[in-house]
């Protein structure tokens, strides 16, 4: 039962996000690009208010104390410095230098190739839904690239 509630809740959140993203054309990487090129803050404001909105949400969750186990927010004061748990390198990214390296190399690559593709992954998914064939190809490459990446990294680490 909870499983279906989980699937439904995440689907509804995605639905709301999809509608709002489509109506506004929000793009985070595009915001950095437009600010750098034209000093245009139209999209950049979206990225900044996203951070503010999420921060307000986490503070609400933290103050109500129903959601987080003790000491999970603000995260940095309790857990110290370690790589984002979702990283492919997992336990291989422990220690200060690998942690920083993972964040810097991964972040740089994501920003660089997102600009070449013309938008951040979220924007590409929305543009694919609007009928942009390039974005549909991007989404297919994105979805296929993930298992291939895991296979490559596994082969390299083994």
């Amino acid at each position, binding site marked *: 039962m909870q499983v279906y509630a989980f699937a439904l809740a995440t689907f509804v959140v995605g639905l709301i996000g999809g509608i709002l993203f489509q109506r506004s054309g929000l793009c985070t990487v595009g915001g950095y690009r437009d600010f750098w*090129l034209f000093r245009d803050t139209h999209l950049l404001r979206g990225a900044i208010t996203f951070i503010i909105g999420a921060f307000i949400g986490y503070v609400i969750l933290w103050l109500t104390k129903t959601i987080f186990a003790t000491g999970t927010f603000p995260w940095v004061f309790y857990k110290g410095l370690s790589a984002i748990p979702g990283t492919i390198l997992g336990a291989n990214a422990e220690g200060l230098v690998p942690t920083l390296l993972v964040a810097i190399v991964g972040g740089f690559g994501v920003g660089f190739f997102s600009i070449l593709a013309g938008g951040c992954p979220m924007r590409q998914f929305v543009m694919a839904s609007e009928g942009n064939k390039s974005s549909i190809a991007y989404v297919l490459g994105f979805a296929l690239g993930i298992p291939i990446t895991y296979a490559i990294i596994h082969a390299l680490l083994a």
Partner: protein
Amino acid sequence: MEFFEFTLKRCEIVQSSKIPKLKPWQTGLIVGLLAALIQIVYNLIPQTVEGNPSYKTGPVAYGYCMFCHVRDLVNWSIKGLVPWMTPAPISAVVPALTIIGIIVGAALTAIAAKEFSWRRTINPALAFIYGSLVAFFAAILGACPIRIMLRLSYFDVIGLIGLFSVILGAITATEFVLKRGGGGGGS
């Protein structure tokens, strides 16, 4: 520039539609708040899912993540094919359907607003390669540009460093590729 013309073209389409247009900052605020608050389902439901006894709090700052949720969905779809994939534990039982929601929501809204049209911005083969490369680096980072902002809101120092790296990468590509006529697409 190619993408600038594309943006202008999009604006003309937008003005002719009846469904009101939102400002990016309004969307950012609403979706950011939603992304944090949806953490409730990640933290409450997994505790009761059978087969995951050690999974207590759920992945943190996980409301929206283009990379993580696609990975979970792909892993769930091709179960067993790539055994070393490491999705969030809840997704072994049921994947987060955020991606499906975004695609359905954006497509329906685009159709309703008469903004849906078959078009292309850059060479699809090139876009496919860019998609794989972004997925590769997002896998190393463990987040997409959206989730890295969520991590920053979560007071994660690595989130801040990752966001600075994303901005640095974007500026580098803008300076050395876009300004010299390469790349393209519009957003």
